[in-house]
């Protein structure tokens, strides 16, 4: 968890844009990427990525909760006493998750059923608590929004990558549309739980390799 603390100074080549907001956003998307970089929030990432649609809905839910939570925390940070801040986070996050869950139940009942307990488990997702504690509580609302969007999209991007691989190889479909003809037997291993671990391990290998190349 040591890497989660605050802001890393971007490397020189990364300063495409001078704005600090943009740098914070890119940090969240790549260096602080929750799944492949910080190895946080794995539960939902592994559980919902057998189908791309589930992964998309899940990443949108997490991004919304993360964004609203970061905005609330960073705007009322002077009002929260230091000693009860964890409990304050928990109350805010739980209320937001209840709202998201009700919205999903009403508008997307099928997906809500498929996601099962994992929407409610956003409450204990380390990403949201981690960003609140390490970033939103110490920074302005504007920066907190950039950070939440970066980390949220980074999370979504990782989930979609995992789901793309797993759905394509496991079912031969993408978003439910058939891509690989039915005559080719899909690799069902990737659609069951162990496949999630294999897909994640492979991605971490690929991303570590890319990062090491870039560092050289």
């Amino acid at each position, binding site marked *: *968890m040591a890497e989660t603390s605050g802001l890393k100074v971007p490397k020189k080549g990364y300063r495409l844009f001078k704005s600090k907001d943009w740098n914070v956003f890119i940090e969240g998307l790549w260096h602080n990427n929750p799944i492949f970089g910080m*190895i*946080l*929030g*794995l*539960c*939902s990432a*592994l*559980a919902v990525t057998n189908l791309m649609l589930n992964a998309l809905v899940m990443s949108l839910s997490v991004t919304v909760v993360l964004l609203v939570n970061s905005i609330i925390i960073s705007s009322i940070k002077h009002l929260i006493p230091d000693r009860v801040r964890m*409990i304050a986070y*928990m*109350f805010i996050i*739980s*209320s937001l*998750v*209840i709202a998201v*869950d*009700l919205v999903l139940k009403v508008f997307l009942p099928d997906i809500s059923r498929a996601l*099962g*307990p994992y929407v*409610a*488990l956003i*409450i*204990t*997702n*380390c990403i949201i*608590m981690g960003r609140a504690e390490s970033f939103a509580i110490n920074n302005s609302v504007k920066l907190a929004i950039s950070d939440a969007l970066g980390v949220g999209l980074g999370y979504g991007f990782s989930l979609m990558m995992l789901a793309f691989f797993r759905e394509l190889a496991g079912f031969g479909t993408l978003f439910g549309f058939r891509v690989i003809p039915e005559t080719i037997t899909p690799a069902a291993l990737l659609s*069951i*739980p*162990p*496949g*999630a*671990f*294999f897909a*994640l*391990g*492979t991605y*971490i*290998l690929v991303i*570590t*390799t890319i990062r*090491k190349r870039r560092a050289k």
Partner: protein
Amino acid sequence: MNILLLLFASIVTSNIALTYFLGMCPFVTISKNVKVAFGMGMAVTFVMTVTAMANYLINHYVLIPFGLQYLQFLVFIVTIAALVQVIEIFLDRYSPALYAAFGIFLPLITVNCAILGVSLFVMLRVYNFWQTVVFGFGSGVGWMLAIIAIGGLRKKLIFSDPPENFTAPGITAILAGIMALAFIGFTGMASL
């Protein structure tokens, strides 16, 4: 569902860590050492059983009669946080040996998604009281089994020679995948 079948399924075939991916953060970070993994596993089993019972009772005798189901998530997590505090105080006062063994893990457990996950599964699958107790206990034992096994496997990794870029989290994920295959192999006997 038969209680014994439920126990077997929750420990092995529907293992909470390897099939439902709950409690993954400590699973990856704490599993470097079998002894620590054991302490954490014991603490999780204990807390899981107690909180599953408490949340079942609160859900059935407070929330449902008063029509407050929409507060379930909030109440569950608050109950878990409060119970962990109470357990910590009790252990510190009455059983210092036990407190020394797994007291340090208790604060970490409040945000362990496996604990909340068990309470949510109990609610979603409409278990009765005894099924809840068995499911909570079985899931805890299953989680402990998984984290001890991965701890033991990771110790052997020191002597092996994986590819250079296959650093800790990547190789742990692959190991967990192979283990999950072994656990799921029993699905024909019982599953949830």
